[in-house]
């Protein structure tokens, strides 16, 4: 092969690729700026104007979001960049938008509690790091990129998990680190085997698919599962979910909110691409959809039943987020174009509802309510906050009149539709317990309102017009609006033409 031969056009497409990297570049510069702000501005170091880095990071995420939006509108079809290392399509743009908004909300949530937090600028930088890693991960199809961006997210998360500088935080990040490294090693092993089997480091490439065609063996299955393990770890899905409860319990609330959305969605994106790749246009010997479906249903069930008896609110939400990653996986299990679109819708709704809940959990935590029994009787004194929280929880459950219902309806519709087209009874077997799980989930979701409203307890009245209530109200209105008029958002999502 001739090396100089390829060189000019390689430089050519590198230059072309760069213009699709607006959001990522913004985030990168954001990280630098925030760090420099932390170093240069003395008042940040002394902790007096702690808000500054957060505001800067917030602006950065919003800019990134705007840019992602821009190239959402710009490009219609998928374009692969950097020699196919990454793909930029509407699928990834959508996830980028959601992740940016999630990052922004996280920073917003961390504003009130930032004064008792040290190293605010590093904190902001790490949050941006997570978001940036999510950006890369949602785009990447090259194994190297997958691995690197996954590690980018992981390493930032390890540090963030311990950001409440307490014993619990240290323990959480330690566990997170050990588990995460192990799972990434496992994934790496799987990826290496896949590379060996196909001879291509890019899962979207043609020779990857051909290589799969040649080796439809058990080893391929094992390799795929090992690789899958890493993604499942990011999504906190079975069997790689074990870290989630402990870490969630340990981490500060905004970080937990971030964990429950951004790495999950990024992992979901890469998992979707991966499953689509290994199914190799449906010619594979193994029913990867069924595997994902199985994992999904196990995850849903495990998450829901385990959440039933939780005492700590954060821990309960951890299990709930596990269950929800199961619901998201259903979209992958069906793996039709609609189902992926519905999955995106679900992701958006889940993101909003989750932030409502975590926002209020932080609000109540600041008032000293840690465990669920602490909430007893607080609903009487603070009905506004609790009603908004209740709406968020109901949306997570999936009951009208909240968008959660629409999202679940659509997810199951997608499944049903897949069942209709590919007459695969397995999908039906996912459908039924999936629906039953909704009932189970209601129990723990309603426990906080139950304690707050029905159980008696002493509580002091508080004023309604708070910053949190305003934020919550906005998000709740979004949830309600998405129930009453989902067609706007859905029509938008319909533009996602999902190909590798």
């Amino acid at each position, binding site marked *: *092969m001739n090396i100089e031969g390829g060189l000019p056009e390689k430089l050519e497409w590198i230059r072309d690729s760069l213009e699709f990297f607006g959001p990522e570049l913004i985030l990168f510069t954001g990280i630098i700026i925030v760090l420099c702000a932390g170093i240069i501005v003395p008042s940040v170091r002394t902790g007096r104007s702690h808000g500054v880095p957060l505001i800067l990071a917030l602006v950065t995420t919003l800019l990134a979001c705007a840019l992602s939006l821009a190239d959402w509108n710009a490009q219609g079809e998928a374009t692969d960049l950097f020699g196919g290392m990454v793909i930029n399509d509407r699928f990834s743009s959508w996830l980028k938008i959601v992740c940016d908004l999630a990052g922004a909300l996280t920073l917003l949530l961390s504003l009130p509690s930032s004064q008792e937090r040290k190293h605010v600028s590093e904190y902001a930088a790490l949050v941006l790091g997570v978001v940036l890693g999510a950006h890369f991960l949602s785009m990447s199809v090259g*194994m*190297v990129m997958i*691995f*690197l961006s996954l*590690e980018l997210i992981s*390493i930032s998360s*390890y*540090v963030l998990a*311990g950001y409440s500088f*307490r*014993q*619990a935080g*240290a*323990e*959480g*990040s*330690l*566990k997170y*680190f*050990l588990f995460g*490294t*192990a799972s*990434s*090693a*496992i994934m*790496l*092993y799987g*990826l*290496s*085997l896949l*590379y*060996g089997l196909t*001879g*291509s*480091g890019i899962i979207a490439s043609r020779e990857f698919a051909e290589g799969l065609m040649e080796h439809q063996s058990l080893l391929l299955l094992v390799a795929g599962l090992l690789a899958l393990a890493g993604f499942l770890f990011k999504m906190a899905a079975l069997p790689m979910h074990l870290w989630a*409860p*402990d870490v969630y*319990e*340990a981490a500060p609330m905004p970080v937990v909110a971030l964990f429950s959305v951004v790495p999950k969605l990024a992992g979901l994106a890469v998992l979707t691409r991966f499953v689509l790749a290994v199914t190799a246009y449906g010619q594979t010997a193994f029913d990867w959809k069924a595997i994902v479906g199985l994992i999904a249903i196990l995850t849903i069930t495990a998450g829901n039943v385990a959440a039933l008896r*939780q*005492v*700590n609110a954060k*821990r309960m939400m951890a299990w709930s987020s596990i269950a929800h990653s199961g619901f998201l996986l259903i979209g992958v299990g069906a793996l039709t174009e609609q189902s992926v679109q519905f999955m995106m819708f679900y992701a958006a709704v889940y993101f909003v509802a989750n932030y409502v809940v975590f926002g209020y959990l932080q609000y109540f935590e600041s008032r000293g309510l840690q465990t669920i029994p602490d909430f007893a009787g607080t609903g009487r004194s603070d009905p506004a906050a609790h009603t908004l929280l209740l709406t968020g929880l109901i949306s997570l459950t999936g009951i009208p009149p909240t968008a959660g219902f629409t999202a679940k309806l659509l997810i199951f519709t997608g499944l049903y539709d897949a069942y209709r087209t590919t007459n695969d009874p397995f999908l039906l077997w996912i459908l039924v317990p999936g629906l039953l799980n909704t009932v189970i989930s209601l129990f723990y979701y309603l426990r906080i309102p139950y304690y707050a409203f029905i159980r008696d307890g002493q509580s002091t009245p508080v004023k309604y017009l708070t910053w949190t209530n305003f934020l919550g109200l906005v998000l709740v209105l979004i949830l309600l609006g998405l129930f009453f008029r989902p067609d706007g958002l859905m029509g938008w999502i319909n533009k996602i033409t999902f190909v590798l």
Partner: protein
Amino acid sequence: MIPIEHYLILSAMLFSIGLMVVVVKRNAIAVLLGLELMLNAANINLVAFNLAHPERLDGQMFAVFVIIVAACEAAVGLAIILRAYRLFHTAVPDDISTLKES
């Protein structure tokens, strides 16, 4: 040339040993050692497979990046372990389990 299967068997051994170390050793640093072993096993795979597909250097590239990442992980991991050690006066995760199902 050495058949690729031999590389693979070697990597499998290292991987399993690493896994064993991870599970068996109580000290966090020892666990870290095991993890490093597992990463190495993956690297061996990559390099070996690159022999099978020699026209591009993907495998070796990948291996290099893995090494870098491994270094990063080691750094952060040790930092974390040291924090935990400072707070708990032990580096044995089993003694550090305040977070568990109530």
